[in-house]
């Protein structure tokens, strides 16, 4: 396993996680969710994290987003600056605020950060344009499709101009076709400013299509078992990479790593 100290380039915009553990207090003593998780994400890198259901992926992201405290270990992440977040999290599933318009949803992060109204509307519009939703800025989330709502969530995170973007299975609720569209859009946006991204997914295809490197997590209590680099060029054309022999080999290798863990997760 790679130790954090071995990594280079973990400057301001990287993630450095060392020996991270989390145990929830259960009725029969503590139940471990994460055990000694160690990994690094370099600045500007797109890293995918896959693992069986319930292995603690969301717990890990929530620790990184500052929502929960780890039991042990250390996390080194960029700090927030005025008008700029260190990390922004795109939540799993329905996470638009239903009582706000699309524009207010996108501006929400900026609002609680204390960005002045005029500036936050400006920035929100810009990011709505980036995800192609400018025309729906006065609509409410229930008037949008699931795919459009997920674009709103991504725009909300991007509007805070985070050094690091954390994404928790953002496309899990979408149908296959819309998922492909949104993956494409995400890569296009990412290509523009190359933010550091940690992308949690349970889809092997999604991990390979999007990322530079895939971290594989074990069954609960989760730890990183392997990391697999994705040797596919950028910008990526999904049509082409499907035909690339490296794609099939990568997919087979990841499944080989993951299969045992999924079986273990199902047994426990």
């Amino acid at each position, binding site marked *: 396993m790679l130790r954090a100290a071995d990594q280079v380039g973990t400057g301001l915009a990287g993630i450095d996680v060392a020996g991270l553990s989390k145990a929830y207090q259960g009725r029969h003593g503590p139940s471990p969710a994460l055990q000694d998780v160690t990994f690094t994400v370099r600045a500007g890198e797109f890293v995918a994290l896959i693992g069986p259901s319930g292995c603690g992926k969301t717990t890990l992201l929530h620790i990184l987003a500052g929502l929960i405290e780890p039991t042990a270990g250390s996390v080194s992440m960029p700090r927030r600056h005025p008008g700029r977040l260190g990390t922004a999290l795109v939540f799993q599933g329905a996470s638009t605020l239903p009582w706000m318009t699309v524009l207010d949803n996108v501006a*929400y992060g900026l609002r*609680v950060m204390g960005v002045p109204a005029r500036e936050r509307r400006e920035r929100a519009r810009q990011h709505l344009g980036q995800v192609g939703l400018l025309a729906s800025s006065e609509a409410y989330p229930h008037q949008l499709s699931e795919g459009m709502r997920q674009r709103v969530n991504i725009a909300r995170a991007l509007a805070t101009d985070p050094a690091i973007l954390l994404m928790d299975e953002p496309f899990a609720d979408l149908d296959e076709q819309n998922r492909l569209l949104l993956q494409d859009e995400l890569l296009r946006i990412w290509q523009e400013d190359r933010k550091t991204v940690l992308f949690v997914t349970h889809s092997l295809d999604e991990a390979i299509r999007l990322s530079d490197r895939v971290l594989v997590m074990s069954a609960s209590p989760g730890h990183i078992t392997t990391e697999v680099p994705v040797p596919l060029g950028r910008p990526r054309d999904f049509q082409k990479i499907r035909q690339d022999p490296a794609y099939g080999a990568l997919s087979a290798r990841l499944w080989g790593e993951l299969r045992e863990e999924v079986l273990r997760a199902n047994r426990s």
Partner: protein
Amino acid sequence: MKARIADRWLALVSPLGLLLLWEGLSRAGLLDVRFITPPSAIGRTLVALTRTGELPYHVGVSVERIIAGFLLGSIPAVALGLAMGLSRSVRALLMPIVAAIYPIPKIAIYPLIIFYLGIGEASKVSIVALSIFFLVLLNTMAGVLGMDRTYFNIARAYGARSIDVFTTIAWPGALPSIFTGLKLGMGFAMIGCRNRFSHLAIVPDLRDRCDVRRPAGHRGAGMAGDDHPGLAGAPRHAVADGA
């Protein structure tokens, strides 16, 4: 759109139908008009009381009391309900008291309120406030507790302060439940609002005023000399008061 208009007409059918049935049964002699006043007689009295200005005056007084009591009861209830929904400690601290006081019939507290606040406006507004306070409080709290936890996580992930969570998440998110509480509360506010208007609305009293045996417009015997007696000064209303 057409269906919606049709629904509106349907909403008129049941009350109008009931009134027609009522009137018809009265005219057919199946309902004793001495006990159940027919709608036509009530209507005539309504017109008469409106002409004299008595009814509008009392309606005005009642509406004022309801609005005052409503604001006095619901504003602290919403604030406290949000706090109880958001904070486990506030909930633990206050829930036993709420659970103990809520089921007490408000009418049982009424003598105490009169004792301390007198029989004037203050006591009447207080009883309205008190009768809606717990409904709004409990509904608001339930509304916050029933919200998807993700909304709170979103706020916290963006570094929202407690006040932001309060105003941007808990309050708008719990609004549907708050309105349920307010709607329920409105019904109780009407019951709590005891005054001349409610006496007018209570059937035995109104029957006095609707003289079914005399021509319309003729003031009934019960009306004579009834010159706005105070709450305690009208023995004839005693039964209605206790209702």
